[in-house]
């Protein structure tokens, strides 16, 4: 459990960080909260020669509301998120998800950017971001660009980020009257999900006018359950409609068998979590 030798770099500006990552290429890794990368280094599953710590870059710690929604810097920690009155009011789903990430010690260091950017299917925020249709602000040697969360994840630890690019901020749309819920089944505090479901929906006179669903840890990537959500628009979330949506969501899962259970169990649990999240989101929708 001793990592190999590495050089530790601590740039103060984003441009310096990008330059350092470009200089050292594949051998360098950006370091945010470190709670995915450092355990891998300790097991020598990752042996970067250079760690570029993003902690000193003030621009990455912003948290403000803009016309297009909330803008949350990549280095905002889960704990900072949980303490933000703005997020509580404008994006309560993030609060609900952050509360279920790991434990207080990890949340004190773990960042939103690290959680969404490293492509670990066990992380909770990616499915939440897909559900909320968030956009990732990305900066790299070739400049800035934006990538939709729903288009970001390609495989386990494989994302749309190009070499040398980092996520700098996340833009989360704010939707009035939205009912949201994140249901996570886990073995114990601190564990990744057996299965989890994020739901955001709006109702008019009890009828679903919009619905989005994200699923955590039931496939090599987080899942945006687009078809399942579409089946619910126009319904009043009657048992039958929910059953159809659950079946559609289960159909796109491809869970791994591990200590959390065999694949068939985790697929079913994705469905159960979705049904429970839908029920809670329905109650909360204005």
């Amino acid at each position, binding site marked *: 459990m*001793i990592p*190999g030798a590495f050089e530790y770099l601590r740039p103060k500006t984003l441009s310096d960080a990008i330059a350092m990552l470009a200089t050292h290429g594949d051998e360098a890794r950006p370091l945010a909260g470190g709670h995915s990368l450092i355990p891998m280094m300790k097991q020598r599953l990752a042996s970067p020669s250079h760690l570029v710590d993003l902690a000193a870059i003030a621009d990455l710690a912003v948290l403000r509301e803009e016309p297009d929604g909330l803008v949350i810097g990549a280095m905002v920690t889960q704990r900072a998120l949980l303490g933000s009155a703005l997020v509580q009011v404008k994006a309560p789903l993030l609060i609900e998800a952050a509360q279920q990430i790991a434990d207080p010690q990890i949340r004190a260091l773990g960042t939103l950017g690290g959680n969404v950017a490293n492509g670990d299917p066990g992380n909770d925020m990616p499915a939440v971001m897909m559900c909320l249709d968030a956009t990732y602000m990305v900066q790299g040697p070739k400049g800035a660009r934006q990538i939709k969360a729903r288009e970001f994840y390609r495989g386990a630890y494989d994302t749309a980020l190009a070499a040398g690019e980092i996520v700098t901020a996340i833009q989360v749309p704010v939707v009035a009257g939205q009912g949201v819920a994140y249901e996570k089944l886990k073995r114990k505090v601190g564990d990744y999900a057996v299965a989890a479901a994020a739901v955001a929906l709006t109702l008019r006179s009890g009828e679903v006018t919009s619905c989005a669903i994200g699923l955590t840890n039931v496939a090599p990537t987080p899942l945006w359950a687009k078809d399942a959500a579409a089946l619910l628009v126009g319904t009043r979330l009657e048992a039958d409609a929910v059953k159809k949506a659950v079946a559609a969501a289960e159909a796109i899962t491809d869970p791994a068998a591990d200590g959390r259970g065999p694949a068939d169990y985790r697929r079913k649990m994705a469905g159960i979590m979705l049904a429970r999240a839908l029920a809670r989101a329905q109650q909360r929708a204005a």
Partner: protein
Amino acid sequence: MNDMTPTREAREARLEGMGCKRKRVEDVRFTQGRGTYVDDIKLPAMLYGDMVRSSYAHARIRKIDTSKAEKVPGVVAVITAETLKTVNLAWMPTLAGDVQMVLADGKVLFQNQEIAFVVATSLQAAADGVELVEADYEELPVIVDPFKAMAADAPVLREDLAGKTEGAHGKRDHHNHIFKWQVGDKSLTDEAFNRAEVKIDELLSYHRTHPSPLETCQCLASFDKIKGELTLWGTFQAPHVIRTVVSLISKLPEHKIHVIAPDVGGGFGNKVGAYAGYVCAVVASIVTGRPVKWVEDRMENLSTTSFARDYHMRTEIAATRDGKVTGLRVHILADHGAFDACADPSKWPAGFSNIITGSYDFPVAHLCVDGVYTNKAPGGVAYRCSFRVTEAAYAIERGMDILAQKLGMDPAELRLKNFIRREQFPYQSALGWEYDSGDYATALNKAMAAVDYAGLRAEQKTRREAFKRGETRSIMGIGVCFFTEIVGAGPSKNCDILGLAMFDSCEIRIHPTGSAIARVGTKSTGQGHETTWAQIIASEIGIAASDIMVEEGNTDTAPYGLGTYGSRSTPVAGAAIAMAARKIRAKAQMIAAWLLEVHEDDLTFDIDRFQVKGVPERFKTMTDIAWVAYHAPPPGMEPGLEAVSYYDPPNMTYPFGAYICVMDIDVDTGVAKTRRFYALDDCGTRINPMIIEGQVHGGLTEAFAISMGQEIRYDDMGNVMGASFMDFFLPTAVETPHWETGHTVTPSPHHPIGAKGVGESPNVGGVPAFSNAVNDAFSFLGSTHIQMPHDAWRLWKAAEKLGVTG
């Protein structure tokens, strides 16, 4: 007397003797981060050792190339089996009479087996060296399932045993067979089954798990070439035994070996045995002439240093139609992994598993245990239980519930009907033990009253009906367990370890000013001996517990003891402490009589003093007496006030308890929630009720973990799965149920203070209580037995099989 004379109550309170909820004195340093654990010790020029481990579960090793590792800056030496052969230490004896590779010699037999030991000037350099040691493997077929180990065509695991048909415990029937151990009358038992009106027959598996102390196994070896002396600090539950073993295998004379167990962060059986890391650190220190430290990481601890359980118990009970048990027949398949490194008393290859008749009056019984080798890590330690007692308790307590279900009887009623009655003690069990004392019906009735058992059963009936009507997706289970432990190993007539009788010891020295130091042969790994041993002495000789220093773990200063495991400290060392104290009190009485100018028989002992019978104002306190013992003892009497006692117990002690667990299970997710858990323990005389309660809470938390998900799992290739705290279920305060405790007191008749030991009872009784609750929840759906561990996915699978998932 004047107004300044303290009252008897005040004197008793100051004493903090037995029965007092004295706060743990060791916690003053532990809660401030001032404990001294092995890894806190740093010596000048110290080197660090790190293990190279096998990627495969079964493979021949063609070659180990250490040349690249040796070139890493900071690496001082790389030790392999070839190095160890030069000092005849490539293999070492196990406590169970087998031999075990220290470093892989020609082949590996389990994943993560030790292959080479890299010694370097820093942890980093050692780890860099480990990465560069290259082993060339030829994979061999793997056995992980003990049921396949004895197939005719099963691969040969232990080539070193080729042609050996006799093992340490008799005849071996197969190349992967270790021993067959039988006890009881087979023909009478078979007859009882032939005549039986009702029978049950169920395979009850107790899965492989691990004691997982928070501090992993570690040591620091320092060999002084000039003096020819070895000092070995380590996480040892039995430091004296380690000293003797080191002397026997290293050929160093025992007086030149100093074994020291400093503060130890939990043991639970994991720290009884001797491990490859210890041998390698010692050899490396001898080879390099420098101190060498070896510290396991979490994965190494979970995947290589002794596991627990892995017992597969075919359990049969014969009974009459009205619920009287008439016979017990059990066959156990015991998976010992690659080497038989069980930490049991030497003549007990299956521990005390013949306690399997439990709390019930079985007229006849027969037990047969077959031990087998598989490609899994060696071990088989008593994880917070006496030797194999928790496995036995699980089999009988699940068995009784299965029988109750078959008879249509309430499981508590079945137990009450078959208990060994109070007047039957001392009771000779059908499998050879003499139970010392018990009052089982009183204990179970008290537990049932505490939880309103009848009310719970009525509620369960209502809820089951509601479930059948589709009004709820939750099922309710009530788990009853009544266990009898056998602890305090042990009487020399029964037990030894490598020929050493399993006594324990205490030396007490009273200082001239009336305070004292007591040294004991046990070693606390969290039990609070510094607190409780002083309480025993306080009550026995009248010196306040706060004036008594307790010291353990240094083999140069402590009298020889067999250590702390199997709940033996209180039954064995606790008795030695009382007996040593009584020697001191006897001498103190002589001094007091001389001072008060009366006959010894005219004195009575009262809390902290001897006083003249009927004249309480004429007295001498222990402080007065201590001073006189060193200042001007009676003519003809040796000065000083100290005593040593070695105690060979006449019998084991038999703590017992009644546990009731109430659980609700969501059939849609398989998630089980413990609504209530009540634990009544009878450990005889209670030394410190607060520590007992803490022990019970801790043991129940482990029992909860084991029954509800804690597991060392292997895939078919022998890869150990989830050997980290991400997957290995160590519950946090969030998952852990709330514990309610109660007690009855039935003292041990043969123990000087009547105490029986308690630390392991909750693990022994807790596991069947949880499992019975789970099984009881499902029983109305037609289920007889669901194997542990009862984690959510397995319970969901059980529900699915019964057709009740959504």
